């Protein structure tokens, strides 16, 4: 899984700390999410997408996506 959280975060001018605070998670969780090393729950994915004013599809990319 790859993510485009970092890109969208930069667009919104948000720090990892600020995004973590908005979503209600630890900064480390945002770090691991950005690196694609943590599979979030649907709720967390939704909250991150909402905080970045985008959609889940836009920020979480699955390499084996065949749709």
């Amino acid at each position, binding site marked *: 899984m790859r993510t485009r959280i970092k890109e969208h975060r930069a667009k919104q001018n948000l720090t990892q700390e600020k995004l973590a605070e908005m979503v209600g998670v630890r900064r480390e969780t945002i*770090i691991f999410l950005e690196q694609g090393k943590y599979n979030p729950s649907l709720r967390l994915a939704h909250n991150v997408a909402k905080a970045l004013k985008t959609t889940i599809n836009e920020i979480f990319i699955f390499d084996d996506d065949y749709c």
Partner: protein
Amino acid sequence: MKTNRAFLAISSTALIVIIILISLRAYYVTIALIAGILIIGHREFWSLIRRKKLPPIDERVRENAGKSIRNGFIFFVLALAFLMLPFSVLLIRTPNIVHVLGGLFLSGGMVYLLSYLFYDRVEPKLDERGLKMLKTFLLVAGISLASGIISVFLHNAISGLFGIEEPVFFFITVFIVPLALAVGIIGSLVIFINGLFSRVS
């Protein structure tokens, strides 16, 4: 708010357990418990010292803590069963039952601590190759430990049955098992510590 309550509950429970342990004179378990709490909760303590908001207990932390509790519990049950089966009479008669149980809790706690550190701070930082190597080293350590126990049993059984000094399993137990165990433990520790202290940006 939720974090504050959880932190308060854990701290007060730990304080009660520490008082009980000190009254039982299980000092080494007390020290280990305090060290474990400080290692796991160092971020929370640091936030308290700096009078900052406590970091939230998010789903990742809950997930990691859950998996670690499961590992610690499984280890505790297995170790207790291992001790109880062959030594149950000896265990009941021993005057140091508190120390035996303290040792078991301590080992279970160590498994919890190492599991938590692994899931929370090591696993996400290791790449696929690192994880594979760690798994291999742990497997080497586990297999050598198991073969050590089996070799001792077989050496004694063969020597006792045939009245000879059995050489093959003796050689395996004395030379190969300690070497393989050392390689497994040192290798896993190096990868674990490397992952634990590597930086993420």
